[in-house]
């Protein structure tokens, strides 16, 4: 239907450099990719496969392809699949069945097909041929192998598993500062040094049968880079292509721990002191050392086999090349499903001239996809409520030190650095760490962990565990849905976040900036709710992955409370009035938290509401409860019919592996006034940021959204994408056999590599994937010149957009069209918006 409409549409060409960047010029084939790699240092190229991953205490979603964003999405997928030995798209069967169900329309498929045809000569010649080619999935031939894998393949041994267990053992011990009471003795060294020194005593490899492992032991004085290069030379890998393939394969085999090293590098670059100064290249050197020594020890006798292996790595072919045609098929289907979603959304957007946020109650919520359902429910229960979408840290990036926690949590997007810090305070000003209660807890923990003290602990406190177990069994069993009690994690037992450690002027400026970016500079309501979000669940190592990503993997409650406190401050309001933002005296800001398992909104610090607003407060509370009921009902079956039917039970049950779906399903990010999308049921698949171009001075807000929120949505989106299409590499495996390592990461079973990404239970309901892997479609209602300016100014945004790590769609109010931006700034109209 849309294709026909499209033909009627007048194409809108915006950019000046349209001719040079026409998509026909943007051809990419495997040859191109190989060229790129030839120019790059093989070590750096291999290290780029990895990205940082955050510890489970406050994990955030990471785009696992982040360091490869300078290359096109499809090129990276193609090359990575030959290195990872997995296909990075869904199986063809998945797309075809969607097509048969009508979930991918013929028009969308046709659109994707036409685009592919114009870009490369390798694509199928007709849609029929495409459908024929889609009948059988082709796997990825495992051609790029480490020596250990090559040896195992021909000898039926399991060296590559043994090696990864060894490497993992060292990495875990090196980073462990919590689990083992008797620590790894060489933790103060660099990882490479520590590993070399430990080899003096470790006999594992010799016992397993690598006799001359001692050769490696004298490597401590060599720089890891130098060690890698000399090993490559000794192995006989000379070409930079084979070198980079080989090193990439090694990193891919130990992907999990490499992300821990990348994390240290990332945090060190931001200036955080609380991580060890470990470098990923040291880890790569250790991986090389094992493979190298194996090749020396076993490859010697099998000289011919080693020759085979080198020849394969050196040869031009990789796992995908003979199947370029087939690979195109995946690309087309993936594009088709994305086009389908885009046109569906685009055709529902209804531009409206009524931007006014004026209402009695205004509720500011995170852009998170889970807020979308809640916002719709809130707007549905009362016309007096208007909702505003904004990044969940509410523009206040700070470090928050809870008094019973070791280190301050960074409550801000991981791309930023904190602007100030806040401490938890107690009414009687007693530092919490020093209370007897905490002391006792820590004393008992030491008793439990102490090598021999644990005997006494088990004798004395074992029976207590029975009581605790029974309590857990029953709290899960008999959870009531009617409970309105504030979950423990949001209740601070009388404590409160203290004042930010910045002066009044800076606080006022911060508030002014936040209100401007929110678009809330006039028309203030009576009660303005700032609602962060967080997930209350039990016994879940991945709990923080369900919290607010914009708050750095924490719940957003503290950010809301800090901001609200500033906005209610009389002095700050005076300063704001001078700056032109007049907040009426009767307006009161109130912090709240949206608990995402049960879809309840809890008001925080209710006591701060003045008497004059009590009636409004009661009314709002009632509306919020009604909205909660609506959202709960809709949420229950929105992704899968297999969730436990009681949200309260999901929240309290200690054995629940699927408390909620988190951000599963995310597919688009709409940057537009809420009025344009109010009537659309996005089914919790959309990030919604309120944005009003006409009041945005110099498009500063647009720039901010595109350089922060848009990147965060891209990280979340591609984390879900990768965990769905390649759970064996980019997913964290199954929760049921998770084994916490260092109390901050997981392994599966006895050991093996660290697993990062999302556990299968987060994206799969046991029967099917609940997440549809689509690259995120960012709809922006702003002049295209402003959009192009931001893209031109920021290389990161340019990489993401031009290399199609996300789709940018322009909502043009002048022509009422929605256009898709193609690489280089060419806008292709895809749909008309609904008449306003």
């Amino acid at each position, binding site marked *: 239907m849309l294709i026909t409409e499209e033909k009627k549409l007048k194409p809108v060409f915006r950019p000046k450099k349209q001719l040079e960047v026409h998509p026909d010029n943007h051809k990419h084939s495997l040859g191109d990719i190989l060229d790129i790699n030839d120019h790059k240092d093989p070590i750096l190229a291999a290290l780029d496969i990895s990205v940082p991953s955050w510890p489970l*205490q406050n994990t955030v979603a990471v785009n696992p392809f982040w360091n490869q964003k300078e290359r096109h999405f499809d090129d990276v997928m193609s090359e990575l699949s030959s290195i990872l030995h997995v296909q990075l798209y869904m199986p063809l069967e998945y797309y075809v069945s969607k097509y048969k169900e009508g979930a991918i329309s013929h028009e969308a498929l046709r659109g994707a097909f036409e685009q592919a045809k114009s870009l490369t000569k390798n694509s199928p010649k007709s849609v029929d041929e495409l459908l024929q080619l889609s009948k059988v999935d082709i796997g990825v031939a495992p051609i790029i192998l480490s020596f250990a894998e090559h040896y195992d393949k021909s000898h039926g*041994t*399991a060296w590559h*598993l*043994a090696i990864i267990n060894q490497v993992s*053992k060292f990495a*875990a*011990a090196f980073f462990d500062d919590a*689990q*083992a009471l*008797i620590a790894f*003795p060489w933790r103060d060294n660099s990882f490479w040094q520590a590993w070399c020194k430990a080899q003096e*005593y470790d006999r594992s490899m010799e016992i*397993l*049968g690598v006799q001359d492992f001692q050769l490696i032991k004298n490597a401590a004085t060599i720089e890891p880079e130098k060690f890698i290069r000399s090993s490559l030379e000794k192995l006989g890998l000379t070409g930079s292509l084979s070198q980079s393939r080989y090193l990439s394969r090694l990193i891919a085999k130990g992907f999990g721990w490499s992300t821990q090293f990348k994390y240290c590098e990332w945090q060190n670059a931001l200036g955080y002191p609380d991580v060890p100064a470990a470098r990923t290249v040291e880890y790569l050197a250790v991986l090389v050392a094992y493979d190298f020594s194996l090749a020396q020890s076993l490859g010697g006798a099998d000289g011919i086999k080693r020759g085979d292996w080198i020849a394969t790595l050196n040869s031009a072919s990789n796992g995908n090349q003979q199947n370029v045609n087939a690979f195109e098929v995946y690309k087309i289907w993936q594009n088709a499903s994305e086009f389908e979603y885009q046109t569906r959304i685009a055709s529902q957007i209804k531009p409206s001239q009524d931007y006014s946020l004026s209402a009695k109650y205004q509720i500011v919520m995170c852009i998170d996809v889970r807020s979308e359902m809640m916002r719709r429910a809130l707007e549905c229960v009362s016309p007096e409520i208007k909702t505003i979408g904004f990044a969940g840290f509410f523009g206040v990036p700070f470090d928050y030190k*809870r008094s*019973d926690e*070791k280190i301050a949590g960074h409550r801000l997007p991981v791309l930023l650095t904190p602007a100030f810090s806040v401490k938890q305070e107690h009414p009687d000003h007693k530092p919490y760490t*020093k209370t*007897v209660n*905490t*002391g*006792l807890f*820590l*004393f008992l*923990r*030491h*008793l439990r962990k*102490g*090598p*021999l*003290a*644990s*005997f*006494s602990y088990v*004798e004395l*406190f*074992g*029976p207590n565990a029975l009581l605790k177990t029974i309590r857990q*069994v029953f709290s899960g069993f008999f959870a009531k849905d009617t409970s309105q009690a504030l979950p423990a994690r949001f209740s601070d037992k009388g404590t409160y976040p203290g004042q930010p450690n910045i002066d009044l002027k800076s606080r006022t400026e911060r508030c002014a900036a936040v209100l401007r970016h929110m678009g809330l500079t006039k028309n203030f309501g009576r009660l303005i709710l700032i609602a962060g979000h967080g997930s209350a669940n039990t*016994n879940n190592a991945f709990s923080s992955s369900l919290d607010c990503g914009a708050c750095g993997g924490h719940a957003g409650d503290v950010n809301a409370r800090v901001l609200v406190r500033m906005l209610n401050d009389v002095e700050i309001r005076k300063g704001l009035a001078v700056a032109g933002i007049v907040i009426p005296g009767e307006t009161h800001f109130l912090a709240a938290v949206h608990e995402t398992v049960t879809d309840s909104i809890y008001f925080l610090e209710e006591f701060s509401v003045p008497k004059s607003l009590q009636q409004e407060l009661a009314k709002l509370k009632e509306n919020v409860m009604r909205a909660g009921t609506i959202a709960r009902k809709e949420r229950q079956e929105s992704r899968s019919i*297999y*969730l*436990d*039917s009681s949200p309260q039970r999901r929240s309290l049950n*200690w*054995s*629940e*592996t699927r408390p909620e779906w988190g951000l599963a399903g995310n597919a688009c990010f709409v940057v537009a006034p809420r009025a344009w999308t109010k009537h659309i049921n996005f089914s919790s698949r959309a990030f919604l940021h309120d944005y009003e171009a006409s009041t945005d001075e110099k498009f500063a807000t647009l720039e901010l959204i595109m350089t922060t929120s848009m990147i965060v949505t891209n990280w979340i989106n591609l984390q879900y994408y990768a965990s769905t299409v390649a759970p064996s590499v980019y997913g964290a495996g*199954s929760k*049921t056999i998770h*084994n*916490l*390592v260092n*109390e*901050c990461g997981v*392994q599966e*079973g*006895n050991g093996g590599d660290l697993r990062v990404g999302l556990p299968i239970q987060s994206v799969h*309901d046991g029967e099917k994937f609940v997440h549809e892997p689509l690259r995120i479609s960012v709809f922006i209602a702003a002049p295209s010149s402003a959009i192009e300016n931001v893209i031109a100014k920021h290389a990161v945004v340019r990489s993401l957009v031009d290399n199609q790590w996300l789709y940018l769609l322009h909502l043009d109010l002048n022509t009422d069209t929605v256009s898709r931006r193609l690489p280089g700034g060419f806008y292709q109209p895809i749909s008309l918006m609904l008449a306003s």
Partner: protein
Amino acid sequence: MRKNFESKIISSVLWILFFSSLALFGFQIAYGSKTLTIFQLQISALDIVFAIRVDPLSCVMFTMVSLLSAIVGQYALRYLDGESRQGYFYKFLLTTVLFVVMLVLSSNLIMFFSAWLGMSWGLHRLLLYHSNRPAAVYAARKKFLVSRLGDVAVLAAIGLIYHIFGTFEFAEIFSQVEAGATAKSHQAVFSMAAILLAASAMTKSAQVPFHFWLPETMETPTPVSALMHAGIINAGGFLVLRLSPLISHSTFASAMLATCGALTAVYGALVMSTQNNIKTKLAYSTISQMGMMMFACGIHAYSFALFHIISHSFYKAYAFLTTGTLVEERKRDTLKFSSIGLGFLISTVVAAFGIVYFANFWQSGIYLPSVTYISVILLCLLQVGHVNHPSKYFYAIAFSTIVFAVGIYTALEIALSSFVSIQGSSEPSLFVNFFALTIFASGLFLSRFLMESQTRISQMLYMFLWNGGYFGVHTNRILSRRWSA
């Protein structure tokens, strides 16, 4: 929600099993110990009786095992929801649990041995839940080999016992032992049987050197680990408790249990403290706690051993089922705990030896086992050492917490030992008590050494312990040669 009827039904069956264990408990209290015959089979000369032995020991164990399995069954309903093998898990959970129940209720050696085998088979199936994971297959095979070793020992012991007493019935064997009816000529065979039984208990309860399979069984879902570490692993301990009149008859068997138990306890505890992931750590914790239990059996402190089994089971089940909470716990602040001074440690150890020495004479030594056991427990408490806490109330409260816990512990211990009274049939020797105490004391010194010093020797020792004594790699290498996948 999913319609997983099979799982839900089995989960309910396990709760019913728990309630019937309570009923049996009540029956025992009301009517005293009984042997309830269910059916009898006559196969030529063999008289096979299928009967349940209702006595305090079997009631306590039955209640504990069925409560644990009901909790595990309840847990797995949601935990394994959506797994294609959930039904498989429940099927073998029920099978295994029924065999364990049969084991604790058995009234004769034939029943006992069949349950012993059946339980092992059920566990083997549960360990192969992820049979596509190579490490899971390896772990199951290692367990298989050790278990068969234990089976041979039990079978041989049963043969010897039949040879001596001419019956398989527990009641008859025990009354003969009590009456001292064993002929002199049978003494050597009797000792042999006792040693074989002790050895098979050691294979079942993961005592060094039969422990290496246990830390590698984490390739199976958490509820299986919880069941195994809280329930099945106690089978060795139960064997010793059930057959204590036989085993305690041999001073060598007891001495072997006491020393191997103490060694395993200390070794397991030290390895545990070097591990970086929670499940391996918990596995070594189980090994060391089983060592503690065997040590108690070896010095004939049987009611302490039983209490330890119960206490440890609930502790370990809870620990396994709540590993997810560690992520949150790690955020908590830490206080600086320093090791206690060497002088203080030495004087406490000397004092402990003194107390044990005097207990040997006091009341003609009947309190020797209890005094030794309690000395070890109190000695271990010392390990936490100094705490730097600014509040003056802290010490008072920490101290009263410990005193309170000790009070509760004493009350429970007395209640249990008066309910289940198991006495050794021979005099425990002071030497064995001293030797075991020495092992624990050296454990204290060793862990202090490992935590405080950075010398070549401490690094070597760390490396050895951290690698679990290289048992894993050695056995992997042997297995991969002899039994390729």
